[in-house]
């Protein structure tokens, strides 16, 4: 049987369909709740998907990833608060449109262009993933793999943190966590303090991820929750675009899909950055650029196309190179490792049918999300009114039971709660969680490849071990750390990349909407 037929036939089962349905509901809901991010939802779901086979498990996680990308536009448009960071740019024109009585039109166009952009990005995934993986498999030995891990980590540090040094500290913390347990080469125990649980497997990926992304976010909301000042827009207006509006959307769609695919391919850069860049590029290229930010439909199209088009690129980087394309993918790698699937150059070259299965899940999930978004938008609006006294207990209990389900052991539940507190401290002190998780996941890979590289280096000249690819990756790593430091020193700017772009595209003196938006995404 060909890889194509094998990959597709793996999807034809009631279990996969059921899992996608579950992922769809969860994804749309978490997208619609401000503060509950796709990363948090995928981390939460990872707790129970580990009991499933890889394909049904991937069906749940990837469908959440896609559906959250649709659901998060609803609060962005109706209450000016992004459901997830990927819809920050949607607020720029979406909310003004809603205030002008065009919320229905903004929601419909947002869903349609998001679906089309994901399809475009999946074409890139299908075309590029295997060649990139093959190239990496043929040319990447231990030094290159070590350099690639360092590159992925430094890019995430550079992008996700206001202070590069705090990002480095987060990354080092994650790498140290990854070294807890048995040292594979010699069987020596490290930092286990006599705990058999730590000696066996070290810290559980899933418990740490759920703690840092799920519980810490929840704890922060408990600390800071106050009554929402902005009430959801209830008058939605007309739903369908006219011919003129469709025609004017083609150009921003084209520009932003290119931006989104490119940004998606960059490790660790996600939909938030792509959405803002896409919106800005389209504004500059548009005849009606002056009305961007004041309720221009093109602005919604540009923002949502760019952020959605990152999905395929992000998936490509993650699956073909083993370096997470965004924070959701970092969590996904953790789940895949537990299923015995190691994302990286060998995954698709040895199991090409998996590429077909993943592409099939993504495309079907996109179709389901589009239909659900168009059919259920009115009902989804009501979700925005869900009170915290119902939402918080449900999230917490799912975090607890989901973590327990990974090993049927209480120890990871304690780990998860402890990392919830650590994650809260990190969040309040400005240390980003992304590099911690990446360090935990990639640390053992980095150590193993560094170890092999040092053995290779015995007696060989420097340049015969460290190839131009490895040296270029290490150079990029240094640049990605130094560049933000330099640019921030020169501009006295301490914002993250996405904050800088957000502020640049909005203009510095419009604090009202900024205030709501910035607070909503944190």
């Amino acid at each position: 049987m060909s890889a194509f037929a094998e990959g597709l036939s793996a999807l034809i089962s009631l279990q996969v369909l059921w899992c996608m349905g579950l992922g769809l509901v969860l994804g749309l809901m978490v997208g619609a709740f401000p503060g509950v991010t796709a990363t948090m939802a995928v981390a939460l779901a990872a707790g129970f998907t580990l009991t499933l086979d890889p394909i049904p498990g991937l069906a749940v996680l990837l469908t959440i990833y896609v559906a959250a990308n649709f659901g998060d536009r609803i609060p962005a448009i109706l209450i000016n608060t992004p459901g997830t960071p990927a819809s920050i740019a949607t607020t720029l024109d979406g909310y003004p449109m809603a205030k002008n009585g065009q919320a229905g039109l903004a929601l419909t166009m947002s869903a349609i262009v998001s679906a089309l952009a994901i399809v475009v990005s999946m074409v890139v995934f299908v075309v590029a993933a295997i060649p990139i993986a093959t190239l990496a498999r043929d040319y990447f030995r231990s030094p290159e793999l070590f350099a690639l891990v360092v590159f992925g980590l430094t890019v995430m540090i550079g992008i996700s943190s206001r202070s590069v040094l705090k990002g480095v500290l987060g990354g080092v913390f994650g790498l140290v966590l990854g070294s807890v347990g048995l040292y594979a080469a010699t069987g020596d125990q490290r930092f286990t303090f006599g705990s058999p649980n730590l000696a066996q497997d070290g810290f559980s990926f899933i418990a740490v991820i759920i703690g840092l992304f799920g519980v810490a976010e929840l704890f922060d909301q408990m600390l800071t929750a106050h009554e929402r000042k902005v009430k959801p827009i209830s008058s939605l207006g007309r739903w369908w675009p006219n011919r003129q509006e469709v025609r004017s959307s083609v150009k921003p769609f084209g520009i932003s899909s290119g931006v989104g695919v490119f940004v998606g391919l960059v490790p660790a850069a996600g939909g938030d950055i792509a959405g803002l860049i896409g919106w800005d590029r389209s504004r500059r290229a548009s005849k009606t650029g002056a009305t961007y930010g004041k309720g221009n439909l093109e602005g919604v199209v540009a923002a949502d196309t760019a952020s959605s088009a990152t999905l395929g690129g992000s998936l490509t980087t993650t699956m073909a190179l083993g370096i997470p394309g965004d924070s959701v993918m970092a969590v996904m790698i953790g789940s895949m490792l537990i299923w015995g699937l190691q994302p990286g150059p060998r995954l698709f070259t040895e199991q090409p049918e998996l590429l077909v299965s993943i592409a099939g899940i993504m495309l079907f999930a996109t179709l389901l999300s589009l239909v659900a978004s168009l059919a259920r938008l009115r009902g989804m609006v009501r979700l925005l009114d869900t009170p915290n006294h119902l939402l918080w207990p449900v999230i917490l209990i799912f975090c607890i039971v989901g973590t327990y389900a990974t090993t049927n052991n209480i120890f990871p539940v304690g780990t998860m709660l402890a990392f919830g507190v650590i994650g809260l401290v990190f969040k309040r002190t400005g240390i980003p969680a992304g590099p911690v998780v990446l360090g935990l996941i990639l640390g053992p890979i980095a150590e193993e490849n560094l170890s092999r590289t040092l053995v290779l280096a015995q007696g060989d000249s420097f340049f015969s071990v460290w190839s131009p690819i490895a040296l270029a990756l290490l150079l990029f790593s240094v640049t990605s750390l130094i560049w933000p430091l330099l640019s921030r020193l020169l501009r006295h700017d301490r914002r993250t990349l996405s904050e800088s772009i957000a502020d640049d595209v909005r203009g510095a003196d419009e604090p009202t909407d900024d205030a709501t938006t910035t607070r909503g995404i944190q």
Partner: protein
Amino acid sequence: MSGTQNSQAVAEYREGVPAPSRRMEVMVAAVALAIIVSVVLLAQQIELRRESAPGQIDARFWPTVLGCTGAVAALWRLALVLRGGPVERDDLERVQPGGAGRLAMTLLLSVVYVALWEQRTVVAAGFQVQVFPVVTVLLLAGLTWLYGGRGWRALILFPVGATALIYVLFHTLLRIPL
């Protein structure tokens, strides 16, 4: 937007974010440095069962490299914050009155819940009772009350319904021994 409105909006926004704190930044860098130095010291105490081969790294090498890297970053950060002014924290929301208490109670209830759940089953009135459903209903009711839920729907119907859903999903469908 006029200048006055603009200043007012900025002032309102500033009210919602924590004040810049140099002391906190110094503390973060100092604590990070202390933790990292501990990592380096603990790394030297890792028991090695055998000597590593020439060129091969032993179990102490990687944590030591990480510790040294982290120590440089922490020292650099400490020097920067000691020299510089307070750092803006406008990416955070201000802690609301009652927030810390709500969080502390949540942690306490969660720890008690996990400790009770670990008992798995208890014998009550001659019957073996599974602990999970009982303590989960109590935890959910307690949390709902803590977060402001009142009335029988919030305090009885919701905890019982949510527990039933979790039990069916994890225990019955996914066969997790709760």
